[in-house]
Structures are given as structure tokens and as C-alpha cells.
């Protein structure tokens, strides 16, 4: 099969039919090029949206309370519902659906942060150490809040990078005291999010400290929890329903009352979005393979004509002892060669184009600063896809050559050589 002769023969026929080989190859190259561009774009879109989700753990869920809007068990509507520390204990110890919990107590919006002569008002996220993982908080220097901070009601704070810039300028903030609402807090870390600059204007404070110092009693405003990871949106929905039911029982409101308790389940959204992208991906493959099939039919067609033209030659070969297998090999190999080489060119060009676009996007992102919310990220085709595309090419080459090869193998020397008479 890897004999020089067979290749020599294939190249000599290709050389004799340059234009035709080029056109045939082009249709295959175009097919695979389109497939790569489509797949790359699909990936880019999917990566971009995944990136949006990547700001938080995908299985995160937020809960907050309001006033009841439906009468329940003889209780009137318009009754305020309030989470408390007992709910935290319940969620951490009793609830099977929940894995990690962080409570939050809201500080007044206009609370002032001050250091030396600099001051400003910033959002404070009061939390448990678990929040770091749930909201993917990236610590640039120092550390995040830990269990000891919680137990000892330490007055410590992690500030976002924007707060650091506003209050400390070039100064090293860690180890300094920043006054929050007049109370000095020891800075233990600086957080920095590369993409979401809003997060950089936030500070993180131990929940226990905040509740005590800012007279929160046992009041909890919101819970951030992570649930176990499930595969379908129905299951994710069921989890949030169960948590809602538990809370409804504890606070005596109708589980259907979304005003009494609001919640947002990231996992449901995530699964739904990923489902859409799976569908897009499938669609892309179908279109791409459709385009490819058009190319393959072209190759097959050309090979058929070629076999017809070479009937005489094949007849001679058979007369002097070529076995049907060797004739099939000749035609099949030529077909595989054309599709593989042309397809590979298309593959390289498609992948190359997507890499170029990616380079442009990255450059634009670097120039545009951290706040550009692109929905198109890394629109490239991964190695696995490229390999499977290559395999598809070789396979399709074999497929395209199969019919013509059978035809060639069935050439009877008598008929082929009779043409002359």
C-alpha cells in the first residue's frame, strides 16, 4: 500500500487532471473549512456565555425575603418574612439539598469607608468564608475571611481592588486600618476580579462581626447556598422547590408566594443555557457535515469519471495480473489522498481563521479594559474536534472512492481491451 509505484501512479493521474483535481479538492476543503468556522463560532459563543457563568459557581442559589402576598394558615397577607441565624443552622445541618451556606447582613448603602483623608461609600458583602468559593472571589494579595475571624468576631475586611486604589493609592493596604461607618477594620486582603469591575468595588466582612457591630440581632437578609450538582433543569428546579418548602414551613408562608421569599437558582439557568449550546453544536455539526457530504459526492463523481477514462488501463493491469484488491486500492487511495490533503488544507485554513479572530478579540479585550462583556470568547476548535474532523475526512475519502473503486474492480479486461477493435 505504501509502495512508491502506487503513489507515482496517483500523482501522475492527478497531474494529468490538475484543474479537475483542484475543483474537487476545493469542494472538500470548503466543506471542512465551513465546518471548522461554524464549530469555532459555536465554541466561541458557548465559551463566552460560560465565561459569564464563571463569575459564580454554577450550582449557586440566592435567597431573599420580602412580605407575604398570599394569606396562609389564617395569617394575613402583607406580613414581613425575615431570615435569621436559626435558618442558617437549619440549612447547614438539616437540609440535605444544600452543601455550602453563606449568610449576608446588609449594611446601610451610604456607609463610609475612610482611610486617612480619603473616603468613599462602597458596597459591603458580609459573608462566611464559604462565599469565596461560591462567588469565585479572587484574592490578589493577603487572604480571605476564615473561620477564626467568624468565631472571634474579628474586625477584619477584604477590600476590592478599586477600593484599594481609591483609599490607599500606591500604599500597601494590608495591615492598615480602614474606618467603616466610623469603626476601624483591619485590612487582611485585596480581591481583584479580572472581568467584573463591579466586584472590585466591593468589600468582604465576616458576617458575625457585621451582625454584632451594626446591631443586626440575629437578622439575615440573604442566603447564598450551593446545592449538589444535577444534570437536568428539572432536578435543579426540584432542589430549589425543596429549599423553598422548608423555608415556607419555618416562616409560615405559602410556598407559592414568591414575594415572601425570592430566589434565583443559577444551576437551572446554567443547564438551560448549556442545553441550548448543545443544540447549537449539534446543528453546526449537521450543517457542516452536510456541506462536507456535498464535497464527498463531488469527489466520488470525479473518481467515477476517472475510472471510466482509465477503463483501458485498468483492463491492461488486470490482464497482466492485477488482482481486484490492488485495483480497488489504487482508486481508493487516490480518493483518500485528494480528500485528506484538500480537507487538511481546509482544516488548517478554518482553524487558522478562527485563531486570527481569537487573536483580534484578545487584543481588543486587552485594549478595551476589564469591563467589556463579550459574549464571544476563544472561538477556536479544540484538538479533539480537529482529530475527529481529520478522521471524518479520511473516512469520507474512502467512502467517496468506494463506489468508483468497485466499478474499477469490476472492469473486465475483455471489454476494456475490446474498445480498440
Amino acid at each position, binding site marked *: 500500500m505504501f509502495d512508491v*509505484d502506487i503513489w507515482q501512479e496517483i500523482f*501522475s493521474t492527478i497531474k494529468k487532471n490538475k484543474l479537475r483535481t483542484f475543483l474537487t479538492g476545493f469542494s472538500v476543503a470548503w466543506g471542512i473549512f465551513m465546518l471548522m468556522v461554524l464549530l469555532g463560532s459555536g465554541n466561541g459563543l458557548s465559551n463566552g456565555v460560560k465565561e459569564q457563568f464563571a463569575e459564580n459557581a454554577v450550582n449557586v442559589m440566592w435567597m431573599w425575603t420580602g412580605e407575604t402576598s398570599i394569606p396562609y394558615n389564617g395569617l394575613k397577607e402583607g406580613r414581613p418574612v425575615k431570615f435569621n441565624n436559626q435558618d442558617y443552622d437549619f440549612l447547614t445541618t438539616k437540609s440535605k439539598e444544600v452543601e455550602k451556606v453563606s449568610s449576608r447582613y446588609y449594611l446601610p448603602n451610604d456607609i463610609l469607608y475612610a482611610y486617612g483623608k480619603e473616603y468613599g461609600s462602597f458596597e459591603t458583602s458580609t459573608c462566611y468564608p464559604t462565599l469565596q468559593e461560591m462567588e469565585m472571589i479572587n484574592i490578589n494579595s493577603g487572604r480571605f475571611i476564615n473561620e477564626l475571624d467568624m468565631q472571634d468576631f474579628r474586625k477584619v475586611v477584604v477590600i476590592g481592588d478599586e477600593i484599594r486604589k481609591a483609599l490607599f493609592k500606591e500604599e500597601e493596604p494590608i495591615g492598615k486600618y480602614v474606618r467603616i461607618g466610623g469603626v476601624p477594620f483591619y485590612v487582611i486582603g485585596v480581591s481583584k476580579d479580572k472581568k467584573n469591575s463591579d466586584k472590585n468595588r466591593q468589600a468582604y466582612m465576616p458576617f458575625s462581626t457585621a451582625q454584632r457591630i451594626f446591631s443586626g440581632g440575629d437578622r439575615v437578609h440573604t442566603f447564598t447556598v450551593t446545592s449538589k450538582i444535577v444534570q437536568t433543569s428539572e432536578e435543579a428546579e426540584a432542589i430549589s422547590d425543596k429549599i423553598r418548602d422548608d423555608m415556607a414551613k419555618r416562616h409560615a408562608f405559602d410556598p407559592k408566594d414568591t414575594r415572601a421569599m425570592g430566589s434565583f437558582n443559577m444551576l437551572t439557568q446554567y443547564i438551560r443555557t448549556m442545553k441550548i449550546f448543545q443544540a447549537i453544536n449539534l446543528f453546526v455539526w449537521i450543517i457542516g457535515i452536510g456541506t462536507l457530504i456535498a464535497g464527498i459526492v463531488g469527489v466520488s463523481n470525479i473518481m467515477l469519471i476517472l475510472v471510466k477514462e482509465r477503463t483501458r488501463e485498468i483492463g491492461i493491469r*488486470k*490482464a*497482466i*495480473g492485477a488482482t481486484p484488491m490492488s485495483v480497488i486500492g489504487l482508486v481508493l487511495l487516490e480518493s483518500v489522498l485528494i480528500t485528506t490533503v484538500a480537507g487538511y488544507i481546509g482544516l488548517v485554513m478554518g482553524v487558522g481563521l478562527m485563531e486570527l479572530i481569537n487573536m483580534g478579540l484578545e487584543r481588543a479585550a486587552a485594549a478595551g479594559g476589564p469591563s467589556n462583556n463579550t459574549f464571544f470568547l476563544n472561538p477556536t476548535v479544540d484538538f479533539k474536534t480537529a482529530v475527529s474532523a481529520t478522521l471524518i475526512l479520511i473516512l469520507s475519502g474512502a467512502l467517496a472512492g468506494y463506489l468508483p473503486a468497485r466499478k474499477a474492480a469490476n472492469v*473486465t479486461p*475483455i471489454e476494456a*481491451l475490446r474498445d480498440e477493435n
Partner: protein
Amino acid sequence: MISIENLHKSYVTGNNSLHVLKGLNLEIKEGEFVSIMGSSGSGKSTLLNILGVLDDYDKGNYYLSGKRIWGLNETQAAITRNAMIGFIFQSFNLISFKNAMENVALPLYYQKINRKKRNLIAMEYLDRLGLKDWAHHLPSEMSGGQKQRVAIARALISNPKIILADEPTGALDSQTSLEVMDILKEVNDQGITVIIVTHEHDIAALTKKIIRLKDGVIGEVITNGDLQMYRDRVKHE
């Protein structure tokens, strides 16, 4: 060498059946130099195809070198042809994009002999036929006689038992025809059975035995001295 008993062959096209060979009997011994003649439709092409294991037959027996040729699949037939039979055609049937040496070497390629060795052997055969200097020329650069000599070299390279030549001089002028016939005679002198299908009497006269086909059976077999004398006269002119 060749033994044919009661051979029948029909071609079926649609509802029509054409009975070409009608119980033909033929015996050709090793080392014979035979020509097969007959008008068109007499079945000579059909017989040649069957002799060359290019086609099968319906009824009867065909023994080649003592082995019955029957029910071979394509691969077995190809191997038999490659090992036993050398073909020479009217229109040479060289492969146009291969040079003389590569054309001659082709049967050895199908015997899976490596490139270097088979090209060496091919050169030897070309040398014997006086074409050493033409080894690297394409068929299109050669004269008809040269092309037929290349084809003969190709037929000989696999050391066949039988050379089957279908109108080997049909496309050549008379001078070249005689040269080709001389070569075939030399081949025959080395002990290879040579069978020629021709409709030219003077060519047939150069062989040692003429078999005339008529209506799918042997019409007559001529082996008398008159033709021998005729051949000598043509040669000396």
C-alpha cells in the same frame, strides 16, 4: 500444455443468447507456435479470452498445464494470468504515463517484487529486445514496432508458459510485422508456447500450425510444408 474438450460458450444479452463456441476441441502441446484464424464471428476472440483466463466458459473442460481452469474467482484468475500467460495486443496497450522500463516491470509489481529488482530485470529484457536506450522513454515517444517490442518484453518478464498474441501485427507495417514475428519465433525457440490470433494469411504462414475456426468449432488444422516454404520465401525477400 493446453487441452480443450467440448468447450461451449454463449453470451447472453437480455433475452438473446448468442452461442459462440459450440463444443470446441483443441490440443496445443508445449513449445508449439500456433496461429488461430477465422472470420469475424467465428469465435476466435472468445477462444482467446478463455485461453487467457480472461473469461469463463459454460460447459466442457479447459486444462492449462494439466490444471483445470474452472470456477476461479477474480483474484485466482489474476494470479493464474500473471504466472502462466503473457499477453500481446494489437494496440500494444502500454500504460501511457509509464516509461518503457516501468511498463515492462509492471507484471513483476503484481508479483510483489521490489522496485529495484524488477527494474533491473526489466532492463535485461529491454536489452534483449534491443531497446536498452529507450528504457526511459514514454510510449508516446516510440514507434509502433518499438512499442510492440516493449509489450513483448512485458509479456515475457514473468516467465510465462504461454504467450497469447491478439493481432500482434495488426497496427504495424509489413517490415515491422516481420520483425515482430521474428522475435516471437525466437521466443518460441526458447520453448515458450506462442499462440497468435490473426486474420493475415502471411502472418499465420510464419507460424508452425494454423488452426482455422469456423462457426464455433475447429474448421481445419494446417501443418503442411507449403506454408513452411511460403514463410521461407517471404523471409528471404
